């Protein structure tokens, strides 16, 4: 098992290096740089050039890349060109804000998805199946930013029972007043994972139910809940893989949902960095998110291997 984990971790190194190189190259493909946005157009060229030199933007891209990589290895994410604040502060504040949404959204979405999917499969063809499947398809199909706007219109503007936007403060919620700000964005964010997981679980359970071993289990006189346990255990690995991917997406922050709810998370930070051409913020954000994505997938692989010994081979 340990050899498997070490092997998976080693695979992550070239992936992250590749991501960092790609990010750096893509950022420099866009026309102009941060100085073009930082100062008005009529700034004399020599002043604009001195700013470029200050940010080391006058050096070749590969030199900038290796210098950045060198600083990264000693834990220095740099300073934002635009705000002059440490990138680490900006990034970890944004990531913790996103985590505040992503964790409850994942919990809600995954548990609802598993329950609805399994119930739909065990009640195949009945009105329950149709109702749960319709719910799942709706969750996947509706653009979640639109759902967010509708929820705000109903619960904030018309009923005025929940806040429309913002975090109601900063940091982890310490009061009900602040926690209320989480409800609408969490519900909105949970819709897609709920729908996707529900569809997958339903399909998997139906497929497993058609296997001969399920009939054998029944024939041996196992109670229904024991049969359910075996069916769900067999359906778990692929659902776990999908949950890992979905959680990664949630941590990346949904730019649209963050925009609708004015939530200062990682998606918004990345969006802002793109428009500002703020290379230190953008490259650090993408690399950290990619790392989290890779780590989550490794964890999922390990979990799968724990559940199903065949995966370790």
């Amino acid at each position, binding site marked *: 098992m340990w050899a498997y984990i070490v092997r998976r971790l080693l695979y992550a190194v070239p992936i992250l290096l590749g991501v960092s190189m790609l990010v750096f190259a893509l950022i420099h493909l866009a026309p102009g740089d941060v100085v073009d946005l930082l*100062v008005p157009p009529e700034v004399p060229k020599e*002043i604009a050039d001195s700013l470029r030199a200050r940010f080391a933007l006058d050096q070749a891209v590969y030199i900038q890349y290796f210098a950045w990589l060198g600083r990264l290895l000693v834990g220095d994410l740099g300073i934002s060109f635009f705000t002059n604040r440490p990138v680490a502060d900006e990034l970890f504040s944004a990531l913790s804000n996103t985590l505040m949404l992503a964790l409850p959204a994942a919990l809600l979405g995954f548990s609802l998805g598993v329950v609805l999917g399994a119930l739909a499969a065990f009640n195949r063809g009945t009105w329950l199946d149709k109702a749960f499947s319709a719910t799942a398809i709706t969750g996947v199909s509706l653009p979640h930013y639109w759902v967010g706007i509708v929820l705000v219109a109903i619960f904030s503007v018309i009923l005025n029972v929940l806040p429309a936007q913002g975090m109601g403060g900063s940091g982890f919620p310490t009061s009900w007043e602040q926690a209320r700000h989480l409800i609408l964005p969490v519900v909105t964010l949970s819709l897609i994972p709920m729908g996707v997981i529900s569809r997958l679980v339903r399909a998997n359970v139906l497929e497993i139910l058609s296997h001969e071993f399920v009939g054998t289990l029944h024939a041996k006189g196992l109670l229904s809940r024991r049969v359910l346990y075996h069916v769900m255990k067999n359906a778990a690995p692929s659902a776990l893989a999908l949950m890992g991917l979905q959680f990664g997406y949630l941590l990346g922050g949904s730019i649209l949902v963050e925009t609708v709810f004015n939530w200062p998370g990682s998606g918004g930070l990345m969006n802002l960095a793109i428009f500002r051409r703020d290379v230190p913020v953008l490259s650090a954000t993408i690399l950290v998110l990619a790392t989290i994505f890779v780590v989550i997938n490794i964890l999922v692989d390990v979990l799968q291997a724990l559940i199903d010994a065949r995966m370790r081979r």
Partner: protein
Amino acid sequence: MLLKQTLGLATAAVLALAGSAWAGGTLRVAMTASDVPTTTGSPDNGGEGLRFLGFPVFESLVAWDLTRADKLADIRSGLAESWEQDKTDRTKWIFHLRKGVKFHDGTDWNADAAIWNLDRYFKQDAPQFDPPNAAVAVARDPYVAGYRKIDDWTIEIANPRPISYFPNIATWILHVSPTQFAKTGSWAEFAKAPPGSGPFKITEFKPRVSATLSRNDGYWDKTRIAKLDKIVVFPIPEPTTRLSALRSGQVDWIEVPPPDAVPSLKAAGFEIVTNSYPHSWPWVVNLAKEDSPWRDVRVRRAINYCVNRDRLVALLNGLAEPAYGLFKRSDVFFGHPKQEYKYDPAKAKALLKEAGYSPDKPVKAKIMITTSGSGQMLPLPMNEFLQQNLKECNFDISFEVVDWGTMLVAMRNPPSAPQGLGVDAINNSLHISMDISQFALFNLSANVPPKGRNWPNWKNPQYDALIDRIEKSTDPEQYIADIQKAHEIFVDDPPWVFIVHDRNARAMTKHVKGFVSAQSWFQDFTPVYME
């Protein structure tokens, strides 16, 4: 006993009333910015940054008079009580500093503080030199050739040539406490607790979330002590989210409500406050291209006659007004141009016919537009409207849609540069017209990119000569008459398609009182209070 109790209650009631008259409450504002503007006394986020985290907190030698809604905002005394041009050498300006002013941290304002602040922007070897903000300062105020302290309350600033409108430009340089910089040692640390000298002080700053401004009870101008206790500003770039925040009671005031929402906001009892202000939303044409149709002035006049401004204003629910030049017809600087660009498609078609264009040979032009951006209003629907509108006069318009940053890069470079993407015009709203300094900056022949902002490469010797005379002027009447003449040339030989001016809309609850919508990009929050 009863009398004592009654007197006690009456006293308490009077004290409570007095207290409520002074304490003006907290105003919560939703800005359009994506982030809280920077707090070092040189805020980013353009006009909005200066509006909320610039002028309310920090001050300049010369200030804007934002007390009137009925005329274009003019300058007034600020940290300088008065100023004059040196009579023997008109390249020099003498500023007499105001006495008795203190920064929020108790530091005295005097000539040493003024020189220290100028060194921040103009002296590269000064410890407080601030390269990114110095670049912005040099761009906004390119006429500081030197400066010196004359005595504790007088300084001199030199220009490279006589510039009559220099006091207008002096408004851009804001002053901060030198002591606080000495204590913190860097601008990044200074930004966490930044003392200015304005009627509000920054008391809380949460990046990407909010900034809180509290009343400065020790403000030097006792007639302008703020009524509000606090202003909290939130960056909410998405218009629908700003609207929801207002309608759900999370904020009291939103900047730039979406035009579609105006009728429903009014119906729900919210105030929509609008007024003219120096904003322009033009197409800036590319005259540098060899085969450009715009090189023929008849084509430029034709397109100006074809724009149906009233219909566009209706599309925007009245949140804009028609533009017939850089200035408005009601502005003293507008003058009397020969070309009055009312909607006249027949005249437009006749002009195009003279210039050799017809339905079979329309004028083809590609316009660079953005999806959003500072002052860009609603670029997509507005430009789609114009595309359809101009078709009727034989203009075949296509678009190059880019992000705001790409457009800024294009404007910095000559139109023929690859960054310009070969477009024939740019839809850009940066062209402000609050005073003659901006008018000159954008249009002088010498200011073509990469040196300056004259992206169209418009060159008119008569205009240049007039600006030269305006810069040397000492006669106020001649000064205004020359600006009018320069504007007449600008309208009759147009380097722009004049389309609309924004109306500076903001929506607020009925609890917000005392606000006067100045004809300016900036506003005065001192008379505002919450009822």
